[in-house]
């Protein structure tokens, strides 16, 4: 026999919460680093309220947008950032060809110049993981 509906729903909910906690473990530590950077700025500059924080996540930074957005409020709890809106901008990978000097924005991080097929390329964008700006009072 299947357990009653409520029991099932409770179990499924607990399972997903647990799974997601594991998934965001990495992003949570990244979010905590960000919060501690911002809190030291807030304290130094006597900020009263933070409305919005804009960050840039590069495709090759090792961080992911969605879990970071989930982790941010957890890391921000108890700080002025608690009520701030988080805006995440994604930076695609941009390579510079050492042969023909052309710049290309890539969807996949395949290090090959589409113009001249050279593999001698340098990543010039896509590794960013930065706090871009903050809207404060």
């Amino acid at each position: 026999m299947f357990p009653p509906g409520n029991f099932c729903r409770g179990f499924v909910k607990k399972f997903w919460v647990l799974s997601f906690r594991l998934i965001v473990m990495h992003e949570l530590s990244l979010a905590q680093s960000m919060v501690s950077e911002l809190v030291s700025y807030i304290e130094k500059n006597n900020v009263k309220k933070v409305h919005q924080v804009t960050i840039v996540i590069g495709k090759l930074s090792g961080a992911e947008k969605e879990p970071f957005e989930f982790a941010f409020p957890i890391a921000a709890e108890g700080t002025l950032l608690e009520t701030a809106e988080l805006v995440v901008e994604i930076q695609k990978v941009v390579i510079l060809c050492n042969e023909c000097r052309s710049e290309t924005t890539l969807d996949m991080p395949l290090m090959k110049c589409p113009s001249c097929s050279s593999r001698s390329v340098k990543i010039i964008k896509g590794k960013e993981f930065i706090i871009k700006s903050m809207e404060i009072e």
Partner: protein
Amino acid sequence: MCKDCGCQEGNEKKFFGHDRDIHNHDNHHHDHSHEHGHFHDGHWHSHDSDHEHNHPEGHHQHDHSHDNHIHGDSKTVMMEKNILAKNDEYAHQNKHWLKDRGIVAVNIISSPGSGKTTLLEKTLDALKDKINCSVIVGDQSTDNDAKRLMGKCDCVYQIETKSSCHLDAKQISEILPQVVNDNTKLLFIENVGNLICPAAFELGEDFKIVLLSSTEGEDKPVKYPVIFSDASVAIITKTDLIPHLDWDIKKCRNYIRQVNPGMYIFELSSKTGEGMNSWLEYLAKLVE
């Protein structure tokens, strides 16, 4: 996401717990609170009380714009600050500390089970009485790896990361003076088995080495491009198993080159010793 930590991937529906208010999205639920109100196209829109509303299109889709908020005396400050600035500071200090003592440090990263510890066992055995080595091992729990490596080099130090999925530079800085001595030339840092998180955290190493075993997919380099583009050396391990597997080493090499054309690739079997010599010669040259 920590796909290598044993986490789920490709979940189409996710449920996130919520303390204050619940937003139901078609794709997922998540929690955030709006304790401040906004002006949206001329009307005040308050998010103060507990409420529930539906969003038709997944994440953070509102039927109103957030472009024209009026927030009293607010101003936008440009930060341009690295989120991992603190970790980077520690990493920078570690790097200089090691450089001053003439120690080469390598950060070894792979999925769990690729053969990091076995490779280290065989490497340390071969380098004994030739190069003074020390090892820092990171695992979420247990000191099993440290026990395996004990007695094979000057010092082995196990870091149990508990809830964290990677080693960070602060952990390394705290134990460096205990781990190396005046004769140490080579420091191996065996990171937590994970291809994602350790890639984001510099430890102060000279370079990263990524391992990929023949029991994993050939396309792992393109699936996990961050670490493969960041590391300088790739080691394909367990090559003795290749004849028994439907696994194409050429394909694997090509995938590595696609992500990192200049990557130095070793192919070896720690078990049979095949290919170990060029790896050991490489290490000897590093500390010359």
